[in-house]
């Protein structure tokens, strides 16, 4: 697959289907791939890489690139395709200028997890079926591949590429996973425990905005938190309240639009499980208003811009089960 993706990028550029390709570019090491725009076959030959470390969701780059002259190819893994389609639904991407290549995906690797498994000074990681051979400055290690997947891949919601012009590998399906288990665990705690949990997590936030800036749903021209006119601008959490404010409002602003692509948690330098906030909303929406997957199609109304006359009352939050 890794080779096929690269060959496809070359082919599309060479045969004139597109003028540029959004893909992943090699780095100093084997794992530090950077999203990049390739404009020549030579660049692709030299630097284009698709590997287990191509976790970065490229869909957000299509906002700008679809406005560039000519046509752009983009490679989308299944989860990325949901983000792409959601952006399309919100009129952020000019579809006619993009050529989408869907890629079947077996899950992306998480360098943090490999390091956390005690691998320091990692020189290379070789995939050998279900195993990873990790070569380090301090000796080799063998890890189970599934233990080293990105969180979102470990609980992958769908192997289906929902929008594409061309598909590499086999199209997959949506799948039932345990992605809401952690949310349910938290829901089962007492409010005191939940409060302590989130205080502990969010107190580490350094407001680097990586979660926001990487998020395909957070593609606002100007975020309310950067905007002096909004009345809520802040640059750093000067009080724990502002940590809560930022993350609650961010989750609320992407509620019904978040596809659960998991990029927020992937990029958080402080390892805050931010995806749990978004998943909480997704879980609530599914339970209260019927199953909804943002980005799954172009038609279904987002649950927050829709209603039924017999929706539940907000008091359901206080009445439903769990510890009061």
């Amino acid at each position, binding site marked *: 697959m890794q080779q096929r993706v690269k060959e496809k990028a070359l082919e599309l550029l060479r045969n004139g289907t597109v003028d540029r390709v959004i893909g992943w570019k090699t780095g100093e090491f084997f794992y530090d791939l950077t999203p990049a725009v390739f404009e020549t076959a030579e660049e692709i030959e030299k630097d284009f890489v698709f590997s287990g470390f191509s976790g970065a969701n490229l869909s957000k780059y299509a906002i700008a690139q679809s406005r560039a002259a000519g046509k752009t190819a983009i490679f989308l893994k299944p989860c990325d395709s949901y983000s792409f389609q959601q952006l399309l639904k919100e*009129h952020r991407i000019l579809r006619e200028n993009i050529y989408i290549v869907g890629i079947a995906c077996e899950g992306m690797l998480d360098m943090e997890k490999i390091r956390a498994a005690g691998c320091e000074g990692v020189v290379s990681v070789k995939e050998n079926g279900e195993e990873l051979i990790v070569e380090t400055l301090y000796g080799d290690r063998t890890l189970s591949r599934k233990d080293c997947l990105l969180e979102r891949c470990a609980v992958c919601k769908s192997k289906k590429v929902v929008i594409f012009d061309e598909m590499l590998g086999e199209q997959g399906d949506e799948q039932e996973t345990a992605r809401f288990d952690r949310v349910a665990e938290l829901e089962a705690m007492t409010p005191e425990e939940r409060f302590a949990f989130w205080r502990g997590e969010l107190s580490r936030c350094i407001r680097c905005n990586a979660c926001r800036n990487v998020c395909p749903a957070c593609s606002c*021209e100007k975020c309310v938190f950067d*905007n002096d006119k909004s009345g809520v601008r802040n640059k750093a959490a000067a009080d724990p309240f502002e940590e809560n404010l930022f993350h609650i409002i961010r989750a609320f602003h992407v509620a019904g639009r978040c596809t659960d692509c998991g990029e927020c948690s992937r990029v958080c330098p402080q390892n805050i499980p931010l995806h749990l906030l978004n998943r909480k909303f997704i879980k609530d929406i599914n339970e209260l208003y019927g199953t909804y997957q943002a980005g799954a199609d172009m038609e279904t109304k987002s649950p927050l*811009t829709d209603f039924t006359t017999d929706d539940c009352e907000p008091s359901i939050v206080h009445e439903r089960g769990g510890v009061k």
Partner: protein
Amino acid sequence: MQRIGVFVCWCGSNIAATVDVEKVSQVLAQEPGVVFSTNYQYMCSQAGQEMIQESIHKYNLTGVVICSCSPRMHEATFRKTCEKAGLNGHMVEIANIREQCSWIHKDKDVGTEKAVVLGRAAIAKVHLNAPLTAGQSPVKKRALVIGGGIAGIQTALDIADAGFDVDIVEKQPTIGGKMTQIDKTFPTLDCAACILTPKMVDAAQNEKIHIYSYAEVESVKGFVGNFNVTIKKKARYVDETKCTGCGLCTEKCPQKKVPNAFNLGLDNRRAIYIPFAQAVPKVATIDADYCTMLKSGKCGVCSKVCTAGAIDYKQKDELIEQEYGAIVVATGFNPIKLDKYDEFAYSQSPDVVTSLEFERLMNAAGPTGGTLLRPSDGTHPHTIVFVQCVGSRCDDGRGKSYCSKICCMYTAKHAMLCREKYPDTDVYVFYIDVRTPGKNFDEFYRRAVEEYGVHYVKGMVGKVVPQDGKLKVQASDLLGDRQLHIDADMVVLAAAIEPDETARPLATKLTASMDTNDFFTEAHPKLRPVESPTAGIFLSGACQGPKDIPETVAQASAAAAKVIGLLCKDSLTCNPCTAQPDELMCNGCSSCEKVCPYGAITYADKEFRGPNRTTLIRRMAQVNPAVCQGCGACTVACPSGAMDLKGFSNKQIMAEVDAICR
């Protein structure tokens, strides 16, 4: 920085008794930006208003805070006061220290403290107020009436009478509506056709009225004063301008087996037809579902017999665009379908009929020429059972929860007419209650009972079983506390009425609201009963709720009066507190558009100067201030905060919050 004046009203002792007004005005005088603060016995009095105006001049006030009664009471008053003194009316904020303070608190310290906080909140808001000017939008002096029944006709005639152009869109080939099918009208028993058809002719001949028959509303854009409506004229395969209505084609057409909808399928008509003799326009229409020429290309008889050359098999649906200042909905009603009421054997025996079918059977122009005959065998019925409330006041989920209102009276009419024309018939009416609130209504009902000997039985019919040419009716007599078994020749069901099925999609097109029964909602159930909450949309007749003819006509004229009032104006003053997007922040994501109940938001691609002398084209929300009603739904749907509401901006509300929590 604003220069704010604070005016604390005593409201006699209404406020002053539980709020220390002197203290409130003193404390508020210390707030930043407050340059003048005072209190007075009656701020809304002439003297009070003059004091405000003088202060505006004397202290160069840019903002005014009035601590007084509810803004619902005097906000408009004080805005006018300030406008007369040259200050924009929207630079006034009211702190409600009467209804929400002095009247609910007994302790003067508590009341005073709260009044101060409310005053502070108002001051905080005024700091961020900006002068607002209401926009003007022109009014297109033409009205559209959707539905050409008695309601639509009356509305159109009244509007035309005032000198405005009116178009009627009627989905049937003729105007006239349900009333054309009715034989006699209660409580006067005059002939429906005799009073209706002259009005139909009036409408047709009125220069100001244009009738689009066999037409539907395809789409509605725009807003009060400026609706842009697309009307679809369905192909009738007959050139209206050529057809003389001679009717020859309707006699010669070889396709004779078409159920006659006008007679509710009680007899047949041809594939080309004129619904009834007095139809307006009196033009033939080809029923494409039955016409063999249209279906297989073989026939063409009508075309051959038509001397006017009006037949046009190639006619297509036609779309007409027209602009209107006001729209009146007069889509009327239909009896409900009775498929859920098997116990009355409606689908099993042709002798079980609905009241509307019964009207046709009694009508001189009906299938039986006005002689009451059983549909099954054409014999005279001798025992007739009327069942009331079939599907009305129903709580088992099969019918409607509401009272259909007209059934009691028309059943009394039917029973009376039967007894009058055929004194040898036994007539039973089974009812839950007999409701006769209306002029001469109860007298009419009593005549049926007392003079005509109709058997009124309080109770419901449990079962109707067709057997040996009879209808075995099993019923309960609640007052006699017994079961009745009647061998009837006919059973007449007073089916509930419901809004026409076209009403729901039409409401969506109009962004007009409906209740759960699909009746159009009025702007206020008591005080604005003929207006829809959507500006410029008016309601006429049974589309708003069950009505009899006089009520329908009354509402039709009332709606017309409202339309005339609107069309008389050259322009409309818009609500100045409308949503407004900050173009630099708008993502063009359409979230706001999806929650706007008025369709006030549209999108346009706009060029922007990007960094480094580049040009960017961005999709951008645009709010039509003439349509926006200022609810603010869009402001919360907007993730970037680009959408804000004038008069209730994010910053203003947060400033109030801050002041209250301070």
